[in-house]
């Protein structure tokens, strides 16, 4: 098991390197740092001096891949690729355009992101599975039919409408919770409830319907018929046999998403003004802070790989047939 995990972690290195090359190509080869400087400085103030000082401030004034002027190992280290891309492997992300250290900012913003995403994730999972199991229990009845109808309708609505509608109804009309904002401590609860609830409602349709098909697929298997044949009640069959076995396909989709809880919901956070990583990313995109976007791409890929690893490990926990080697 341990050997397997270590091997998987080593597999991650070439993939992260690939991600780095892709982002490097996107940010520095497709457009040179000169282009970026010109765009950020605006058309009017573009002088060669302004571009040079802009590049120097951000450390973009070095050669891309190979520094012929430097000596020894510095030929490779005194380059943009080394300083901006490879340094990310040791979580050195450099500074954002406003001068703050990106790594520190990311550490600070993880908390609020998790505070909203974790409750939404677990409460959501519980609700989706409950409803899906309910629909599967009442399969081929009007309850099931209308449940699916509601799910399809719900998944046809953009998540932005849920957010705007929820903010308007609960925040503005009923004044139950503040519309947006965040604070530390116990007070944070007031700010978390609405975004978390909307997160749950937003993916209700798609998730419930998906889990329902998982349940139905499992119900049609032979062992379920055997269980019924030996006289078990439908409730026992569902909870003792079907529910446990359906956890395998459900886990495939769910565990991969766990690491992304750190990043939180991009638009949810920006709509609700939560100072998490999601809104950090959106702000960086809007202000065209390339350093932050690049760091978030790296973190995102790291979390994705962690998610894949977690999925494999969770398989061994729920499915004894799977042995990692």
């Amino acid at each position, binding site marked *: 098991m341990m050997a397997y995990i270590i091997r998987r972690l080593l597999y991650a290195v070439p993939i992260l390197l690939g991600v780095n090359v892709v982002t490097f190509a996107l940010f520095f080869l497709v457009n040179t740092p000169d282009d970026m400087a010109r765009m950020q400085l605006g058309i009017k103030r573009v002088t060669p001096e302004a571009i040079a000082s802009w590049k120097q401030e951000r450390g973009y004034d070095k050669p891309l891949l190979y520094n012929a002027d430097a000596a020894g190992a510095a030929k490779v280290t005194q380059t943009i690729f080394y300083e901006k891309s490879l340094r990310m492997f040791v979580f050195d992300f450099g500074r954002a355009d406003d001068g703050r250290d990106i790594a520190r900012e990311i550490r600070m913003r993880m908390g609020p992101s998790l505070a909203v995403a974790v409750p939404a994730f677990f409460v959501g999972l519980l609700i989706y599975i409950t409803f899906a199991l309910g629909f599967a229990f009442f399969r081929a009845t009007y309850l099931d039919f209308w449940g699916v109808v509601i799910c399809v309708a719900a998944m046809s609505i953009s998540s932005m409408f849920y957010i*705007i509608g929820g903010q308007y109804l609960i925040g503005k009309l009923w004044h139950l919770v503040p519309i947006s904002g965040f604070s530390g401590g116990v007070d944070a609860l007031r700010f978390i409830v609405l975004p978390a609830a909307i997160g749950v409602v937003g993916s209700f349709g798609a998730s419930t319907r998906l889990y329902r098909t998982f349940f139905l697929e499992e119900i049609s298997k032979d062992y379920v018929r055997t269980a019924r044949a030996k006289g078990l009640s439908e409730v026992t069959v569902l909870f003792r046999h079907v529910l446990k076995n359906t956890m395998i396909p459900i886990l495939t989709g769910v565990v991969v998403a766990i690491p992304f809880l750190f990043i939180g919901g991009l638009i949810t956070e920006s709509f609700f003004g939560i100072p998490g990583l999601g809104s950090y990313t959106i702000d960086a995109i809007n202000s065209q802070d390339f350093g932050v976007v690049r760091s978030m791409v790296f973190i995102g890929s790291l979390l994705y790989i962690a998610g894949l690893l977690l999925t494999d490990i969770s398989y061994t926990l729920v499915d004894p047939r799977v042995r990692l080697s």
Partner: protein
Amino acid sequence: MPFQIVVLWTDILVYLLVALIIATIAYTRSREHLRAPWRRVAQSTSGMIGLTVLLAFVAAGLLDSLHFRPRLESKDTKAKAAYAVEVLSTLDIVLEPLRTRREKTYSAPLATNLYAKEMIERPDGTQVRDYPRLKYGGARLADPESDWAADIARSAFGGIAGGVVIWLLCGALVAATIARGSGAHISQEWARIWRGETEVPWGAILLTLLVFCALGGMTVALAAKYHVLGTDKVGQDVLYQALKGIRTGLVIGTLTTLVMLPFALALGIAAGYFGGWADDAIQYVYTTLNSIPGVLLIAAAVLMMQVYIDGHPELFPTAAQRADLRLLFLCIILGVTSWTGLCRLLRGETLKLKELEYIQAAHAFGVRHHRIISRHILPNVMYIVLISVVMEFSGLVLAEAVLSYVGVGVDPSMNSFGTMINNARLEMAREPMVWWSLAAAFIFMVTLVLAANLFADAVRDAFDPRVRTRALSPVRLAQLLHARRAQSLKAEKA
């Protein structure tokens, strides 16, 4: 009106897609094994309702995909013809009144007065602070307060009546066409449609058309005199914006998968068929692309695209062409992020197919690789392609809205549901609230996405061999069985 035709990149691809669909239909018609699953789609009530609504949207989208620049009026006839910088489409011609009748600023749906109070000068010279009358909305009413409700009711009723008449013609046409095929009388066929005894659920389709014709007729009648969905900040008609947004949604939903389809097919099948290092390399490529979170990759790519566009203004003669290239680029980059899923599915299916006896036999006979792939593997994985294309459509339409909100979606000058929502977000905070832009985007988007979801489900149920449950609902099944029994009874009597 003299004009200069403008061919946008997405227009070419849209018509290529239409040609592709027509070719597929022509190819399928004569082959029974390909027609069978489509017949199952045609039997599904929800699927056909979805298709009916989708076709209406597609019609608007296609009208909006023929672009041209009108010639500018000039007195000097000898001068070289100058064309407007504004690129129009055939849809703009149809919606000419909606496009040109601009108010000053916000006005509520069907309103006769502006949304905010202004200083108005009276004929006698005194000034008063009141809601000014709109330039176009209900301009013909002498006294809006007393005439407004009656005028709205009259127009709406007239419109609905017109719509119903058109619908009756459609219904008669459908009944007549079916009657010609079966040899029965039109009235008999009409009765069968309403009892739900036809193979294709024409009753449901006609009901959808009825709703559509009535609503459409009402909207047309009202739009002649009012702004049916109000006007936005610069006084533009919201209904017009929503109708223009349809094309953007359709383009993103369809072209994204179309653009990346060749890559996904080639790489997915190659990885599964050849295995070995090709498999390793292709898997590495898609794992790497997959591990970059989609939104971030899109954001990074679009930011870079923006830098490129800003740096090369000489490449784009009009704003529409610039916006169009950005739209195409957005499709490509969305395709790069969504392509990996399809590629993996194709690889898995090819791996399975490769081991089947008939392909082993082909190997034994010495059939070449490219022939095995094109004759035996490709036709057998096409159902996966079809299912994923239709299943991804609605997700992509929704994604466009989110991306436009983040600021990495379509060009801000381009009409789309995303830009409408994005603008409407700030309007919600106004007092009194400006809700109509958001409502319009909501109605159009939900209708489009819901229709696409229903159709996609019907297609998946019909094509996916793993779906063992019947696509038909129990009620529909009972209807069809009843109809069959009635027919066989009749045949026995005869």
